[in-house]
């Protein structure tokens, strides 16, 4: 009998590719022999737009890179510009930033959990995930009025101060969320079919994972004890008690568990931040600001100039976004617009390892392993 390999094209419109990614699979029956990833269906030219916009105007574009976690994107960009221009950020602003970052980490992982389990064929967990996400989004709406694309960070601080009643609502959310995480674990972790689908699927060991450029929770699932918040502490993370969540199993299930643990750690951080929120300015008055006008509603415009020119230079900063290492390489030529903005997106680099993980497995395993490296196409294609 003569057998032939089957060329299967998955995507760019396919329910399980989380957007517009395309896999070209060479299949032997159900077994994947080779996997080529074709991307760029969402390439929007963000880096070129970065050269055409002023420093402040570029902030909204960072929202739309990783649209599930806009706040860390905002933060990584403003952090790069702040390092470039050597701007000191007030303590309260840093606290608010960390608060929003960790809240966003929870949102991101909720969507991760939901869509992973939806990809495995169970439909209910995503509803639960989005139910809590909706609550967290209400907090964000209080803060900045937007649900997904916040543009909340500003160079040298944040846009708005915390509204009245925010901290109590946050505390309610934390309390509620703690119970919900237990619910999720009861629904998912003990499910025999779920374990069958996840354990020993998409295995990649620590050395390979590093070589393939994986970062973030996906790398920590391979047993590498690393977290940029710990290794190169930035913002107020050195003062906060938390631990990097690491699992040693290297498989899909480990990557899933790391993210569930991270949600708990984020809640822990949120509680500390909410308890010790200092008073003070929310945006820098240091170098580029003029005299602070307390009480002005649109405080940003008075604090910080819209047209802002950092000194000539270049900088690379990295932050621990929910999906991994998010870096911005910003080059300034002393004008009002960046000369070059390079985005080191976690999803792009994490995706490199996918073919390595899934060759020899089957299509359902591809879906499971792909779900656990948690990519967003806006972040891959930029």
């Amino acid at each position, binding site marked *: 009998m003569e057998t032939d390999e089957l060329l299967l094209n998955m995507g760019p419109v396919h329910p399980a590719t989380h957007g517009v990614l395309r896999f070209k699979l060479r299949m032997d029956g159900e077994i994947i022999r080779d996997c080529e990833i074709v991307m760029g269906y969402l390439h929007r030219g963000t880096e070129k737009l970065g050269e055409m916009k002023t420093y402040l105007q570029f902030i909204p574009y960072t929202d739309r890179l990783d649209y599930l976690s806009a706040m860390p994107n905002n933060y990584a960009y403003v952090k790069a510009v702040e390092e*470039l221009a050597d701007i000191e950020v007030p303590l309260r602003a840093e606290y608010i930033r960390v608060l929003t970052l960790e809240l966003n980490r929870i949102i991101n992982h909720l969507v991760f959990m939901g869509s992973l389990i939806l990809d495995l064929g169970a439909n209910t967990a995503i509803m639960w995930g989005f139910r809590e996400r909706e609550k967290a989004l209400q907090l964000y709406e209080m803060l900045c009025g937007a649900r997904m694309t916040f543009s909340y960070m500003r160079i040298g601080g944040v846009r708005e101060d915390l509204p009245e009643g925010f901290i109590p609502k946050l505390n309610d959310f934390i309390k509620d969320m703690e119970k919900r995480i237990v619910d999720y674990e009861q629904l998912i972790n003990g499910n025999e079919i779920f374990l069958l689908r996840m354990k020993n699927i998409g295995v990649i060991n620590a050395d390979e994972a*590093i*070589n393939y450029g994986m970062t973030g929770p996906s790398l920590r699932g391979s047993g590498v004890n690393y977290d940029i918040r710990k290794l190169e502490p930035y913002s107020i993370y050195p003062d906060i008690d938390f631990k990097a969540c690491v699992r040693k199993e290297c498989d899909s299930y480990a990557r899933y568990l790391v993210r569930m643990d991270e949600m708990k750690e984020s809640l822990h951080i949120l509680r500390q931040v909410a308890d010790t929120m200092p008073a003070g300015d929310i945006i820098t008055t240091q170098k580029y600001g003029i005299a602070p006008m307390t009480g002005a509603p649109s405080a940003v415009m008075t604090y910080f100039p819209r047209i802002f020119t950092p000194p000539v230079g270049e900088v*690379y900063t990295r932050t621990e976004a929910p999906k991994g290492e998010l870096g911005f390489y910003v080059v300034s030529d002393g004008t009002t617009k960046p*000369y*070059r903005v390079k985005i*080191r997106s976690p999803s792009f680099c994490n995706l*490199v390892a996918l073919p*390595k993980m899934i060759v020899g497995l089957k299509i359902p395993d591809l879906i499971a392993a792909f779900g656990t490296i948690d990519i967003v196409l806006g972040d891959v294609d*930029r």
Partner: protein
Amino acid sequence: MNAAEELKQAMPAAVVSTGMLIDKPLAIIKKEEILKAAGKVKEMGFDNLSVITGIDYRDRFEVIYNFFSYKKKENLVLKVVLDHEAPSVDSVASIWKVADWLERETYDLVGIKFTGHPNLVRILLPDGWNGHPLRKDYDMETEQFVTMGEDGEDIVSTDGSNLLRRR
């Protein structure tokens, strides 16, 4: 002594100069020596290649490699300066697998050729796209359209009549 100076001591022929990029050690490497230098960097324990950046400075290109070491928890930045006419540099994809895609992306958007790369084709833009968008002399005026061929491959042309709706 930071990592850049360490590298200079180990390979004095390859390193042109050292310095700092804000807080990260920076070494400017000769174009021909990048593969050797990268091997040395890997030996020094920099196991993570964070990012490869290509920058068009109108008179020259710069390729920047950011490294991080999980063991020593240190950063290192390597920089290579290329001439503007035919920018090309050796590929480091044989050392770091992630460099495969990062170099393809740099080739795609900035137009720097990486010699020795296993599969140097465009990654974000379709094959046949005219020009490299992140170059400063990229033509933003001409609009290019993509249509789909029989097997789902992309066909780039400036004529969108097959795609656009007649109104």
